[in-house]
């Protein structure tokens, strides 16, 4: 047993070293958000800032951070709602009626895999024609390009796992198809629905390329705001760090809630986890 103990200790040390490497950049980011200008532009670097006040957070939110978070929230909420409503309807139809067959289902999935740079180019021209550049609806609609196929596949997986007998019983009891869907199937997949919604929200919140190209001066999601601060003449690291932390906290909370469904969501349902 002695040798095994040695191996176990080595494994634990290895895991903790890797964990430290994985987390150190976050720690540095948090520390930076509290540093004054003289403390981040200095060598050797200052590790512990002299004061832990929220000055740079307030300043960062004033420099467009608050507006960015508001815009991201509006866009992410609406696109999530759109994906969830239409996505679960389509998923139910695919799961229960196999409408269009397997090829149709895989066509929907393939839309999710298109390179964003390839789809944003024609969309940019399309929205320019509609005079929709720099509007919420342009981004809400564009994000459904990713979120709709995702929601359809996730929800299809959840409906597939639901025994059909329950709905059949409801149908015999005189419930219509619609009633069986709304009153029986939907409540039973509620946890999956929430997981899918959180994934859609997280994707839209974190997205950068579409936001950069389709937003401009009126609509500036938080990711574009952060990138803009970096591109500025004088880089305010503490403010940038502060905004990036504020923008990450809701996402981290969601990821923790999602843990059970994480693998499934990340692999588009290919690995059930």
């Amino acid at each position, binding site marked *: 047993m002695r040798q095994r103990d040695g191996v176990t200790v080595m494994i634990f040390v290895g*895991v903790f070293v890797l*964990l430290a490497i994985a987390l150190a950049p976050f720690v540095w980011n948090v520390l930076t958000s509290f540093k004054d200008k003289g403390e981040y532009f200095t060598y050797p670097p200052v590790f512990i800032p002299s004061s832990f006040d929220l000055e740079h957070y307030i300043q960062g939110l004033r420099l467009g951070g608050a507006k960015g978070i508001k815009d991201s929230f509006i866009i992410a909420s609406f696109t999530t709602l759109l994906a969830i409503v239409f996505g679960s309807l389509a998923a139910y139809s695919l799961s229960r009626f196999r*409408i269009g067959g397997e090829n149709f289902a895989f066509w929907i999935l393939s839309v999710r895999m298109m390179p964003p740079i390839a789809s944003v180019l024609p969309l940019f021209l399309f929205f320019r024609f509609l005079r929709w550049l720099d509007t919420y609806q342009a981004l809400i609609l564009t994000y459904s390009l990713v979120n709709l196929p995702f929601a359809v596949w996730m929800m299809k997986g959840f409906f597939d796992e639901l025994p059909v007998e329950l709905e059949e019983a409801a149908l015999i009891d005189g419930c219509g198809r619609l009633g069986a869907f709304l009153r029986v199937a939907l409540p039973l997949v509620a946890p999956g629905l929430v997981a899918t919604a959180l994934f859609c929200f997280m994707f839209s919140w974190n997205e950068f390329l579409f936001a950069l190209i389709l937003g401009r001066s009126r609509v500036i999601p938080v990711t574009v705001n952060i990138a803009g601060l970096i591109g500025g003449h004088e880089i305010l690291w503490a403010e940038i760090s502060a905004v990036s932390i504020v923008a990450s906290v809701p996402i981290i909370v969601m990821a923790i809630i999602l843990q059970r469904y994480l693998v499934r969501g990340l692999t588009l349902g290919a690995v059930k986890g």
Partner: protein
Amino acid sequence: MGGLRRRDWWIAFFFVLPVVVILLSISIFPMIYSFYLSLCKWDIGMGGQRVFIGVGNYLRLFSDARFVNSLKNTGRVLLFGVGTQFLLGLSLALLLNRSFRGRSLIVTLFLLPMMISPVVVGCIWRIIYHYQYGPLNYLLNRFGFRSVNWLGNGSVSPYSIILADIWEWTPFMVITLLAGLQAIPDDLYEAARVDGANRWQVFSGVVFPLLRPVVIVAVLIRVMDAFKIFDLVALLTMGGPGQASESIAFYNYLTGFKYFSMGYASAMSYFQLAVIVAIANVFLRSWRRREVV
């Protein structure tokens, strides 16, 4: 559920209709238009006219040294980035595939880099890589090495992007492969042990063959994502210095939205679409052959 009754067919139809309409209008029709554009010369910046030139843009791609360079950089991300993520992710998944106290907390902590926005990842690493004031060069100096110009040296900057990408995406491999490992029943390990197999034999003879479908899915998803790499390039180097670290997606972005050569940019994006379609086909085929896990 047997054949569709007529009334059910209408419900099934109306349930999928919104998705089909939205996806057609924002993906298929614009894509057809951009295919037409890829056959034209159209520089909207100069107020230029649209001229049909056939396959000219596609021929131009491979004589464009800058495009070839961006192709190389993207290839490096696939080879070194995804390669390292897989090896590191597999090792970590094997280490974490045992029960101990606090395991789920540790797994969650490992996942954080992947959950936050790539833009935030870019920010964090931009500070860390700072030539004069960054903590990474400070650490190197402390151990007696000279400072590395992580983002300002053209032969280093592509690899700095890859390093940040490894940090961000190794967790994806960890969690996916870990899920695959946990789906392997315990008695298989025990049976192999009883038969006298050593650790390596158990891994290569029992674990890896069973894990293979998950490995294929995980690697293909990462390959597809890495092929589209844009955010880290934009945040860390803006493709620089010069054009040293441009990825295809980033060069494509500049062509379309800085130089406004819509025709050439469309051709470039169609090239990427073709590559992705090829990879996605492999992915979907392996998925359809057997329902994974």
